[in-house]
């Protein structure tokens, strides 16, 4: 026999109590994992951003456009390697529920600046060739079961009418955190149409995207761009892609902070629950601890028993909890996945769950172990009988 055997037997002495506590830990770790993943998903856009990309927008607001004529001027600014532009189209596919981020872009320069959107060469060529073409991310294509050659209609919201596109390519992400839910089509297609129907909205873009030679150039180039358009009709605001993404997120950052707080509160609550179980357990066993002390076992041995039992409970709960995080994340992804292009459980989250459950196991055992270590034998024995 080994002391570990005693730990195991002690743990499952009150089966119902132990399993209920384990269930509590499981649910807590599951909640913790999902909440952490949610927070990570929120920030994924930021992490996926490149430090050699700048975004230029209208300095008043993102909703105001910039003239197409800026492209040439930006191109000439030292440090700028390539310029592209995009328009937030905001079309709806069949129903409002099917949220797909969709943009009108300038294909060649855009794909050059975003090498993480990977397309087979033939699909890329087909996309460039056909002005009514569109490429979609792997996840959207799978979600709506789109095949190359399909005609996909979007209902315009900002730009009225029904717009038909032909799917010429399906891109996949070069990185794990690359957004595979987007939909890109030719800016020209939009612009030609606007020239006829809404000429005053033609020849405009939403944002410019600049590729710079070196991340260190970002402040200088940004300044130079904004300086160029100072006192013109549309003044610009240029920032790194990361701060551009963050400016979106900051709108909801308060919520993210709350989610983070809740995820830690869940851990504190379960700490109280496990501590309660351990206190009850240790109190019942004071007599047995006294016997063991009588036989020559020290406070150290009793601490091993108590910490061991507490950690066994939290570790089992953690394993179940983490295991359940995967199917739960899958369900999550299927239902609201398009709002979070990347919703995967990171190794970091799993390690954090393990760390949290270990911390819970340790904290819950501190008081009982301290008490058991200090109990005087003669007193402890008195409680038996």
């Amino acid at each position, binding site marked *: *026999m*080994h002391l570990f055997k*005693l730990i195991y037997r*002690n743990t499952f002495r009150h089966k119902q109590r132990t399993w209920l506590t384990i269930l509590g830990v499981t649910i807590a770790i599951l909640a913790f994992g999902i909440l952490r993943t949610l927070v990570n998903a929120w920030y994924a856009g930021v992490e996926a951003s490149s430090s050699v990309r700048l975004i230029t927008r209208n300095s008043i607001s993102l909703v105001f456009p910039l003239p197409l004529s800026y492209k040439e001027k930006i191109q000439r600014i030292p440090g700028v390697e390539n310029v592209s532009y995009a328009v937030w189209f905001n079309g709806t596919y069949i129903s409002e529920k099917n949220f797909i981020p969709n943009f009108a872009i300038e294909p060649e320069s855009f794909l050059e600046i975003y090498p993480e959107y990977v397309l087979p060469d033939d699909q890329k060529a087909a996309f460039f060739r056909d002005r009514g073409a569109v490429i979609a991310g792997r996840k959207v294509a799978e979600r709506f079961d789109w095949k190359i050659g399909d005609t996909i209609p979007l209902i315009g919201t900002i730009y009225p009418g029904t717009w038909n596109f032909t799917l010429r390519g399906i891109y996949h992400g070069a990185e794990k955190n690359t957004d595979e839910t987007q939909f890109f089509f030719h800016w020209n297609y939009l612009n030609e149409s606007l020239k006829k129907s809404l000429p005053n909205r033609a020849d405009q873009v939403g944002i410019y995207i600049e590729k710079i030679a070196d991340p260190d150039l970002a402040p200088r180039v940004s300044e130079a761009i904004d300086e160029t358009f100072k006192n013109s009709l549309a003044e610009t605001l240029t920032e790194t892609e990361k701060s551009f993404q963050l400016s979106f997120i900051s709108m909801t950052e308060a919520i993210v902070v709350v989610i983070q707080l809740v995820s830690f509160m869940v851990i504190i609550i379960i700490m109280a629950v496990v501590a309660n179980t351990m206190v009850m357990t240790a109190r019942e066993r004071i007599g*047995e601890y006294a016997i063991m002390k009588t*036989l*020559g076992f*020290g406070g150290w041995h009793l601490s091993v028993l108590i910490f061991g039992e507490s950690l066994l409970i939290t570790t089992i709960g953690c394993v179940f909890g983490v295991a359940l995080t995967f199917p739960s994340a899958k369900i999550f992804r299927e239902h609201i996945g398009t709002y979070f292009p990347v919703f995967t459980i990171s190794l970091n989250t799993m390690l954090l769950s393990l760390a949290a459950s270990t911390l819970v196991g340790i904290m819950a055992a501190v008081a009982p172990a301290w008490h058991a270590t200090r109990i005087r034998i*003669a007193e402890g024995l008195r409680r038996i009988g």
Partner: protein
Amino acid sequence: MGNRKQPIVEIRNLSKSYRRGSEVISVLENINLDIPEGEFLAFMGPSGSGKSTLLNLIAGIDGADSGMILVGGVDITSMTESELAYWRSINVGFIFQFYNLIPVLTAFENVELPLLLTWLSRKERREHVEAALRMVNLSDRMDHYPGQLSGGQQQRVAIARAIVTDPTILVADEPTGDLDRASAESVLGLMALLNREFGKTIIMVTHDPHAAEKAHTIITFEKGILGAPV
């Protein structure tokens, strides 16, 4: 009876009191006692007279206020808590009124428990445990849990646990206090056997005159004062 051999336990000017709030209750006052090796000693006397207190002091599970206790020539009153724990694991076998077995361990595992503190190999431990259980006639109940054994059987397992480390002294606090006549008889017979055949020094607290009969010497307590050995 008595002084056949060198004393294994020597108690000198031992005092012990308990504090209950501001009140100090003196339980033992200036006790002197020699217990020879191989003795089978019984403490008797009214409830609250300090029998258990003295036994616990001799066994090193409680601390004295003043005085000295030498066991095998070693002063245990000057030991630190961890020194005492180690000393107990080697020198003292305990038998209590309520058997005090660990309910989630089998008879075998309960007897093995004190051996986990030794450097014995698994195989050696097994041999010791089997020998001890054979001694108390429970070889066929090794895999039973305490809840599956009668009171008398549980107390015999406790005796096996007490002797498995081959201690210097055996202390027993009302070992038959919770047993019926027949079980008590078998437990007492076993203790007498350990004393007679294996030369174990036994110190026993009891209320039962029948149990005391098995002892060589009876010391009667009266409010912390020891009567003369009888």
